[in-house]
């Protein structure tokens, strides 16, 4: 009986003050236990990795030590060593940091480019839209993998930034198309038309009227893209088209498993990296799905 009254009170409170975007997202994540666990895992992993990597020296870790080749996990090396005697634990931490940084950087850069491009294309429509979308089509038919392989061969020094830039160049089209289709709908609505009669410039309408209405779509897409981008980086590094061994990433650690000896007898080299990739991608995806539901009132659970 008592609990019922409290609930009634709650709904009244909601009715007088509508919940903000963040509280809706938070409610949705709390209601979805898997998403909540994923979010906690993500925060823990990220803060742990970025925190510890501050105290680690990358050059020291990737220096070859011939006296410690293929050490199993033990006191000296928490997760053992690889064929160059390099500490796996240190590589794992720095590798996760690099992979995460690339994922985040690529997501942000593709996000900014894609959103602005799609917004301009969709908002102006007509001939401008036609030309801009043909450019997108051109980028879409380029063979991504082949061009990345060529870039790896040409670019002499490979860093997190240059790798992110290469990936960004081929990954901005998806979000651009998505935003364009939504902007096409949005600009026809009366509020955008009203802004025109009130004397707002096109730029102002695009950025201050239309863009805020696309924010939920942008957040959801970028979160889901983050998972995909982490996976993509690992995949490329695994195939040997990502980072060299001097710059560890989750993918380079995983690529040691291409050696059948390592695959069968030295699990400590590749299993942790594989598990981390899996956990990271799944967690980001779960949080993304919860966000996606939060943006659509009909799908909400919270």
């Amino acid at each position, binding site marked *: 009986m008592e609990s019922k009254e409290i609930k009634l009170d709650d709904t009244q409170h909601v009715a007088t003050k*509508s919940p903000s975007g963040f509280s809706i997202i938070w409610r949705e994540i709390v209601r979805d236990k898997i998403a909540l666990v994923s979010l906690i895992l993500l925060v823990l992993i990220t803060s742990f990795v970025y925190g510890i990597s501050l105290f680690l020296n990358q050059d020291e870790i990737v220096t070859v030590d011939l006296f410690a080749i293929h050490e199993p996990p033990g006191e000296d090396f928490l997760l053992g060593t690889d064929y160059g005697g390099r500490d796996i634990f240190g590589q794992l931490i720095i590798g996760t940091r690099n992979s995460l940084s690339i994922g985040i950087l690529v997501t942000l850069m593709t996000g900014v480019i894609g959103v602005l491009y799609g917004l301009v294309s969709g908002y102006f429509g007509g001939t401008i839209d036609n030309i801009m979308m043909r450019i997108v089509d051109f980028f879409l038919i380029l063979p991504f993998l082949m061009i990345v392989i060529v870039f790896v061969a040409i670019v002499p020094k490979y860093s997190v930034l240059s790798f992110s830039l290469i990936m960004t160049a081929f990954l901005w089209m998806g979000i651009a198309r998505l935003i364009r289709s939504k902007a096409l709908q949005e600009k026809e609505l009366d509020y955008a038309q009203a802004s025109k009669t*009130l004397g707002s410039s096109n730029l102002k309408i695009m950025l201050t009227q239309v863009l805020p209405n696309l924010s939920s779509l942008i957040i959801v897409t970028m979160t889901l893209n983050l998972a995909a981008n982490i996976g993509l980086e690992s995949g490329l590094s695994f195939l040997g088209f990502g980072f060299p061994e001097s710059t560890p990433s989750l993918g380079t650690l995983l690529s040691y498993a291409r050696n059948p000896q390592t695959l069968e007898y030295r699990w400590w080299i590749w299993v942790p990296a594989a598990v981390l990739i899996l956990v990271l991608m799944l967690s980001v995806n779960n949080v993304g799905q919860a966000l996606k539901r939060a943006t659509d009132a009909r799908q909400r659970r919270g």
Partner: protein
Amino acid sequence: MAFLKVEDLKVHFPIKGGLFNRTIGAIKAVDGVSFEIEQGKTYGLVGESGSGKTTTGRAIVGLNEITEGKITYEGEELNIKGKAIDPRRDIQMIFQDPYSSLNPKKRVLDIVAEPLRNYEKLSRKEERQRVHELLEQVGLSPESILKYPHEFSGGQRQRIGVARAIALKPKLIIADEPVSALDVSVQAQVLNFMQDIQKELNLTYLFISHDLGIVKHMCDEIGIMYKGRYVESGTKQDIFNSPQHIYTKRLVAAIPDIDPKKREEKKQFRQEVQTEYEQSYNDYFDNEGLAYGLQSVSDTHLVALPEKG
């Protein structure tokens, strides 16, 4: 010199199709419309949906490109063909749908202040003060300044739309079916309020509606549109007391009467008009079902009739 003069306005939308997306035809949304409005008066534009009344209004504010014709406002030509839209602070619009015409992500303050930010350089404090005044003027409590549009009812939202339209103290307001999305009780509220501010600010309205009852209540002069053309125009008395065109007669007959005693009588009258409409349809409309050119019946009264002889 007329305050607003529309001469032979045509707005055609191209139909694309065939090979290479050529223009293969045109929808003649507005096809040769002319009228004049005097300052401080309310001009009603009436017609069924698809008759081009909204397109006419949107062409005047500049949201639809003009295909042919001329719109002059205080002697100045508006929205010249081929130019980008040229918004005027003197001409504002009230939109039909109070739900989609307010940006759901913006607070009332930002919505009402938008025109002020575009045209007047006010400090934050002055701006807030002005928005307060405007909200009071439309009968909303000033506390609602930080709320979002979805926290209001339809009528309140329409008032926010009105507050935004009058923020710049315009001279002409194009009211595109401002009450057709509202409950009848709220309709009266908004309409009376619109009349009040008309007196207060000496506003001129171009009132677009399909509801003759409301038009009778609001307007001084009326134009009736059908399929992009005028069928009849004149003063309120001309239209309601002596409708000449069969289409107008039918519209006037369709106005509901609240007196239950006259119910049978009204019904019979409507049926008579309906039979007349069916029988004489060909006398009033040409082969394509469009209205003829306007002929004057009296000084103020114009009717679309076939030329005699």
